[in-house]
């Protein structure tokens, strides 16, 4: 008999990457098409990161919100298994509802999370092109009281100048974590950069130096943003050198 024989389970640690996608009417057309295209293309990369990472497995969950909220699947799926179902746009922007729904799932009881032992903090990517049309403050308040959310890597992608960056800043906790994109190519590239960077850093046992994973993701994403035409990591929410171009 050995201590680590066939009767002992040592499961892989996990990190869940959440996509929160605004599918309101204003996203219709090239914006929602770019989101669908970008997420489909980034999933194989996330799978590569997961398979070559000795520290943790990456799982993916996606929540779309418009007039209501809808999880693409009723549990997080391994990056290798996640089949993207194209989302379509229409309706309002229930960001508050999305926050409340996310708060409910960032839990072990009836939620998506496992024991904190053996888990890494999740990474959450919020994409939106407008402002909330519901009572987002109460939903966000629930989310901000959630321990998993407090520990999470949080990045928001503001799609165009109509996105309410103040709300996105409130969601992520800092304006540095809000990346603004102004055209389709920038949107696709930023989704890829943010998803890959969050997954790489979020699923590692340790960070470089003494900065948090959130700080490291922001730094790496901001560095990458400098090389993407039509994307800006605004240190001040109102500054913009670009004009929106959505084809």
């Amino acid at each position, binding site marked *: 008999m050995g*201590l680590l024989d*066939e*009767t002992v389970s*040592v*499961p892989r640690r996990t990190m869940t990457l959440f996509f929160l996608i605004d599918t309101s009417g204003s996203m219709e057309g090239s914006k929602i098409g770019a989101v669908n295209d970008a997420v489909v293309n980034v999933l194989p990369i996330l799978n590569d990161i997961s398979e070559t990472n*000795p520290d943790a497995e990456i799982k993916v969950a996606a929540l779309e919100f418009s007039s209501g909220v809808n999880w693409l699947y009723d549990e997080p799926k391994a990056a290798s298994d996640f089949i993207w179902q194209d989302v379509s746009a229409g309706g309002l922007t229930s960001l508050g509802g999305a926050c409340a729904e996310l708060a409910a799932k960032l839990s072990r009881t009836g939620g998506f999370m496992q024991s904190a032992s053996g888990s890494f903090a999740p990474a959450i990517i919020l994409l939106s092109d407008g402002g909330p049309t519901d009572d987002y403050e109460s939903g966000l308040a629930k989310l901000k009281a959630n321990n998993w959310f407090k520990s999470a890597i949080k990045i928001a992608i503001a799609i165009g100048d109509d996105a309410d960056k103040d709300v996105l800043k409130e969601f992520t906790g800092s304006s540095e974590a809000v990346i603004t994109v102004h055209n389709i190519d920038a949107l696709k590239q930023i989704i890829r950069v943010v998803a890959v960077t969050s997954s790489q850093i979020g699923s590692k*046992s340790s960070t470089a130096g003494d900065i948090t994973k959130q700080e490291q993701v922001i730094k790496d994403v901001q560095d990458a943003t400098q090389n993407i035409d039509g994307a800006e990591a605004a240190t001040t929410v109102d500054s913009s050198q670009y004009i929106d171009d959505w084809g």
Partner: protein
Amino acid sequence: MIQSYNFSCQGESHKVDDKPCQDASFSAVYDDGLAMAIVCDGHGGERYFRSDVGARMATEVIRDSVKTFVENVDKTLFAGKPYTAVEAITSEEVIKKQTPADIVLRQLFSSIIYQWNQKIADHAANTTISDWELQHVDKKYIDELHTSETFEKLYGCTLMVYVQTPDYWLAFHLGDGKCISFQQEPFWHEPIPWDDRCFLNKTTSLCDSNAINEFRYCYQGDGQYPWAIFLGSDGMDDSFGEDANLVNFYIQVVKMLAGEGREATIKSIEEELPVLSKIGSKDDMSVAFIYNKDELSAHISDFIQYQIDLVRQNIAQTDSIVNKLESKINSITTITDEKTRIELDYAKQDIQRAHEGRAKLLYKYDVLMQQLSKEISNTIKYGKEE
């Protein structure tokens, strides 16, 4: 017969980063019947570059403080008392309602904090910066050693302690890691209350300004003692995820102690914890435990039976999942859209995985049943020989 053991080893990620093992552990059984187990876990961030020293010093201070405490405390404060558990203090009101036992324990904790601060202050003042520190640590943190009023952060660590005397036992904890005890009823539990502030990579710490109120503890003096109690740093519980897996590992240790003896068990722990770090948490690993050899030998069938029951439960859960998936698959008679097709594919994939998982559980079940059968045979044979 009460025995103890402890072991700490460098984590896989620390090997890669050329960091020392920042855990420290201690255990002993003394002639007067005092038994003690300690695990201290130094913090891992760059700022806490002397946390290995902090953890080592904490074990020394705790060892000496506890010995003095047990020798001098009025044992009637604990003897005869039922199991009592006290959470970390979050309100000053709680302090006003403290019992005499709470008060003497608070004095013990205060003494530990004071002596640890003295020790690390001496170390900070009298230990030159090492070549390793110059190479690996940002200058701003090194400068904190002599300029900051909060230099103790650099030595920050958690602590977890179990103390057993002939009259009572007590345990206290500050920070993360897990303490698991085995006894008649409940078969296993975490005797020390948890602190929700310890979550993912966040923990309370001996270096916190409010550390005195972050201790949580328990004691019992009615003659009931754990058969075995295990203290593990967070590297251990992060390797196993769910508590049930950690408990299962400790049961393996118990079974090995009873079946193959102490030396074989120690050899296996020292060989396998570094392996566990590599395939699990990558963190430093520490375990310290106190056990009653006679109780473990007498109850070994109970430990195996617990594992068997757990596997049975898992098989039942798997069967339930399979039934639901089969119902889902049977309900899809025609594929009308892409979403339905994907859901059907997932259900088929999940059902295959569930069957594979079930086969592994059945194998586990067979292995455990064989162990139980062997144990019962030995008991009958031993009984006949007697």
